[in-house]
C-alpha cells in the first residue's frame, strides 16, 4: 500500500434508539459491530470450518486441533493482539462478542496451543512452529494502477473491477486443473481486492518452499516502475498454463473490454506505453506514424482502440517478422495489462496472517463476503451489503422469532448459504473421510505391528 488514505473519522456515529424509524445511518463503529457480532457474524460456521472435521465425534479426531489455531484481533484504537486461541466455539464467540474486534485475522495452526508458546520457545528446537495453514492468495486492485485510468488507489468501479474477475478465473482454474485442489474459497476483501483460501489437506500441509514454488508458478508479472519489461515470455510457445489463460480468459477480456473501456490506444500518452513494449523500434515507429496521422480522421465506425489494436497485431504477427522477441510481443502486451498480479509475500510463508471472511471493512463498511468463482462475472463490489444496511434490514425484519438465523432476514443470508453449500459442506465431508481413512490405516498398521 503506497498511498494510505487518511482516516475518514466515521467513528462518532450513534446508533438509532429502538422504536424509531428503521433507517440506520452509514458508518462503522463499535456499537454497530456489537450487533453484527451478536446476531449476524456466523461464529458456528467459522468454527466448523477451522475445525476441519475435528469435532470429536470420531475416535480419529484431533481434539487439540482447533485450539492450536492462531487468531489475531485488531481492536478499536488500533490495539493489536496476536496469538489468540480458543478451545471451543463458545470461547471463540464469547471472545469476539466481548472484544468486538475491528478486524479478525486468521493465522496458522501451530504445533502447540499458541497460548503456551512461551513454554516451548526456550528449547531452540523449533517446537513452537506452524504445522498447517491454508494456501492463500491476495490480489489488490491498487497494484494495477498503471493500467487503469478510471480509478486509482483504493477506489474501485465497475470498469476496473473486471480485472479482479479475470484474476479469479485464471488462478481458480489453475488451482483446480493443474494442482488438483478442490476446496477453494474466494472472498471479497471489503474494499479493493480479493483473497483466496485453498483448504485441501494437501494445501494446508504445504511447506514454505512448496508455497513459494506455487507462487512462482503464478508469477508472470515481474517488476515495478524501476524495471522496464514487466512481462517476458521467451520460448517458441507458451507453457500450457499460460496458453490456456491467454486463450480462455485474457485475450478475450483485453480485446473486448479493457482495450475500449480504458481507451488504451486512443491517446498518445496511452498508446506510447504499449509502443514501449515493442522491442523493434522500426515497428513501433511505423505504428506511431500511422496513429499520429490518423488522430482526427476516423475511417470506420469501429472503436478507435480496436482498429489500432488490429493494426498492431497484423504487423507483429505477420510472417515477415523474424526478429526474436517479436514473436510473443502481442501476448506480452496482453499479459502485462491483464495477467493477475499477486502479492507474492502473502502466499510464501505459513505464518502470514490473513483477514477472516465475514469481517467488516472499517473504511467501507462492507462485509467480506464469499465470491462464487463460477459466477464471478456477476459479482458487483458496489452492491455488497454494508454494516449499516444489514442493521437496517434487521430492524425492518421486526420481532420474528421463527427464523433460525438472523442473517436469513438480511442480504447476508445469501452469502452464508453459499458459504455453507458450496464450500463448507463439501469440505467437511472430505475432511471426515480423510480422518476416517487415516484412522483406519493406523489401526491396520498397529495390527500388523502386533503380529509377532
Amino acid at each position: 500500500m503506497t498511498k494510505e488514505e487518511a482516516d475518514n473519522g466515521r467513528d462518532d456515529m450513534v446508533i438509532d434508539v429502538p422504536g424509531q424509524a428503521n433507517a440506520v445511518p452509514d458508518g462503522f463503529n463499535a456499537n454497530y459491530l456489537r450487533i453484527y457480532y451478536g446476531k449476524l457474524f456466523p461464529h458456528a460456521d467459522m468454527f466448523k470450518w477451522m475445525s476441519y472435521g475435528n469435532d470429536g465425534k470420531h475416535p480419529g479426531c484431533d481434539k487439540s486441533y482447533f485450539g492450536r489455531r492462531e487468531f489475531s484481533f485488531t481492536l478499536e484504537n488500533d490495539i493489536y493482539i496476536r496469538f489468540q486461541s480458543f478451545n471451543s466455539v463458545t470461547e471463540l464467540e464469547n471472545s469476539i462478542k466481548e472484544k468486538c474486534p475491528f478486524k479478525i485475522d486468521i493465522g496458522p495452526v501451530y504445533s502447540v496451543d499458541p497460548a503456551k508458546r512461551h513454554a516451548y520457545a526456550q528449547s531452540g528446537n523449533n517446537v513452537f512452529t506452524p504445522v498447517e495453514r491454508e494456501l492463500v492468495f491476495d490480489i489488490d486492485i491498487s497494484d494495477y494502477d498503471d493500467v487503469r485510468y478510471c480509478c486509482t488507489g483504493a477506489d474501485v468501479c465497475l470498469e476496473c473491477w473486471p480485472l479482479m474477475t479475470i484474476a479469479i478465473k485464471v488462478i481458480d482454474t489453475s488451482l483446480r486443473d493443474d494442482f488438483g485442489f478442490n476446496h477453494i474459497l474466494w472472498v471479497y476483501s471489503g474494499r479493493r481486492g480479493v483473497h483466496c483460501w485453498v483448504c485441501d489437506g494437501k494445501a494446508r500441509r504445504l511447506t514454505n518452499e512448496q508455497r513459494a514454488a506455487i507462487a512462482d508458478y503464478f508469477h508472470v508479472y515481474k517488476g515495478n516502475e524501476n524495471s522496464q519489461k514487466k512481462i517476458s515470455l521467451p520460448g517458441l510457445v507458451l507453457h500450457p498454463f499460460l496458453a490456456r489463460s491467454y486463450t480462455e480468459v485474457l485475450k478475450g477480456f483485453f480485446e473486448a473490454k479493457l482495450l475500449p473501456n480504458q481507451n488504451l490506444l486512443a491517446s498518445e500518452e496511452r498508446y506510447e506505453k504499449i509502443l514501449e513494449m515493442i522491442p523493434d523500434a522500426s515497428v513501433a515507429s511505423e505504428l506511431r506514424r500511422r496513429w499520429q496521422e490518423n488522430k482526427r480522421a476516423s475511417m470506420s465506425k469501429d472503436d478507435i482502440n480496436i482498429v489500432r489494436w488490429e493494426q498492431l497485431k497484423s504487423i507483429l504477427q505477420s510472417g515477415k517478422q523474424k526478429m526474436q522477441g517479436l514473436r510473443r510481443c502481442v501476448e506480452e502486451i496482453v499479459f502485462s495489462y491483464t495477467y493477475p498480479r499477486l502479492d507474492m509475500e502473502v502466499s510464501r510463508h505459513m505464518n502470514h496472517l490473513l483477514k477472516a471472511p465475514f469481517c467488516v471493512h472499517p473504511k467501507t463498511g462492507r462485509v467480506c463476503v464469499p465470491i462464487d468463482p463460477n459466477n464471478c462475472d456477476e459479482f458487483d463490489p458496489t452492491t455488497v451489503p454494508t454494516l449499516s444496511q444489514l442493521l437496517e434490514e434487521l430492524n425492518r425484519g421486526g420481532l420474528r422469532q421463527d427464523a433460525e438465523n438472523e442473517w436469513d432476514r438480511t442480504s447476508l443470508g445469501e452469502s452464508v448459504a453459499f458459504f455453507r453449500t458450496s464450500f463448507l459442506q463439501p469440505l467437511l465431508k472430505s475432511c471426515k473421510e480423510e480422518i476416517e481413512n487415516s484412522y483406519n490405516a493406523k489401526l491396520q498398521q498397529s495390527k500388523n505391528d502386533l503380529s509377532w
Partner: protein
Amino acid sequence: MEVFQSHRKSSSNNVIVSILPFYRSAPPLEVRLEDFEFFAMDRLRVLKGISDGLCRGKKPEEMEKLVVDLWKANMRHPQAVEEVNKDIISHFVLRLVYCRTEELRKWFLSMETTLFRHRFRLESSEAQRALMSEFKLPYKAVSNAEFESVKDKLGQVARSMGQNLAAADAIFYKVPFEEVPDLVSGRRVFIHKGHAYVAMNQVVSLVVTQFRSYISKALILTNRKWTSTIREQEKDRLTPIVEALCTSYLGPDYSQPQEFGEISIKDIDQVAKTSFPLCMRHLFEKVKEDHHLKHGGRMQLGLFLKGVGLKLDDALAFWKAEFAPKVSAERFDKEYAYNIRHNYGREGKRTDYTPYSCQKIISVTPGIGDHHGCPYRHFSEENLRAALVRMGLSSRAVEDVMDKVHNRHYQLACTLTFEAVHGSSCDAGINHPNQYFIDSQRVLQSKNGSVA
C-alpha cells in the same frame, strides 16, 4: 559407511562408475586432526566458490563448469577411495561448523544442494537411474497410453523452454507436484490434477529435493548434538577448530557498528550523498520523495542504517519524520514503530537482525511498488544509467559499469562505481552495503581528516 559406490567400469565388466555419496551417516574412519581442518577448508573453498558464482547470476551451464573446476582444484585425489573419504569427511566436519544458527544452516544447505545437483547432472543416465533407485523414490514411469494422451502438452512445455520432445525422452515420471518445487516454480513441467510429468533429464530435481530435505533435517539433529554434548566434550580439541572455520570465511556481518559508533539523524542526508551504495541511495531518495516505502525497502534500508550506526531512537524519529506527510504520528506508532523496534531486537523473539549482504539483496525479487533489491540487477538499463550519472560518474565510467552489468557481475559493477565516485581503488570488492559505507568513510576521512 554407506557410500554409494557402484562397480567400476572396465571394458570387461561394462558396469557404471559412480562415486557420489549421499552422506547418510558419519564415517567410522579415523581422521588425523590436521586432515580434519584441511579437508574442511578445501571443501569450504568449493562451497564459497559456488556462492560467488550464484551471486554473479551465473547460468546453469556456467555453474556446472564452475563446479567441475572447483572440485578438480580442491578435492581431487588420484585414488578414488581417498577422494571419496575426503568428500565425506569434509562434508561432516562442515556440518558441525554450519549447523549452529539458522542463517548458517540455510547457507550450507543451499551450497551443498547446488554442489550435489551439478555433480548428479554430470553422471550418466544409467548411473542416475541407479542412484534414484538407491534413494528408493517410488515414482512410476508414465504408461504409453497415458503418454499419448498428454504428449501434446508435454511437447508444448518442452518447446516453451526452447527444447524438443525427442522420442528418446519418452520416458516420463509422474510425481506429486510437491516433490519437484523447483520445476513447478520455473514452469518447466506440465502439471495436471496435482501431478507433474517429469522428463528423464529433469529427474535431477527429484533426487536433489530428497537430498536437500535429508540434509536439512540432519543439520537440525547435528545442532542438537553439538549444543548438548559435542561442543563441551571437544572444547580442547575440535571445538576451537570448528569455531575458527566459521568466522574465517563468512566475513563480518556488520551487526555491531564498529568504527564510527554513532551516526545521528542530522548526519544522514550528508552521508547518504557521499557514502551510500546505489541500492541504499535509491531507497533513501524514494522515501524522501514518496514519504513511504514498502516492507522490503524498509527492511533493507532500515537494517543498513542500523549497521551504519543509527540508534533506535534516531531511527524511529527518522522514519516518523519521513512518513509524516502521509502517516500521522499516532498511526506511525501503531503500524510501523513495532517493526522498527523488532529490527533492533527489542520485540518478539528479540533477534538482532543483521543488515543484508549483497548476496541476499541481489537474490530478492522486488515486486510492484518496491524499490529494494540491487539496482545493478533489477533496474532497466535506462534507469541504471541515469542513476549512475546522478551519482557523478563520467560517461566512460558508466560504460565500464554497464559492461559489468551486462555480464551479470553486479558486485563488480558496484565496486567500479565505488572506485569512480571516490577516485580510489577497492581491491577487496564490494560484498556488503555496510562495507561500502565503511570503506567510503575511510577514504573520505583520510582525504579530509574528518567525517565527510
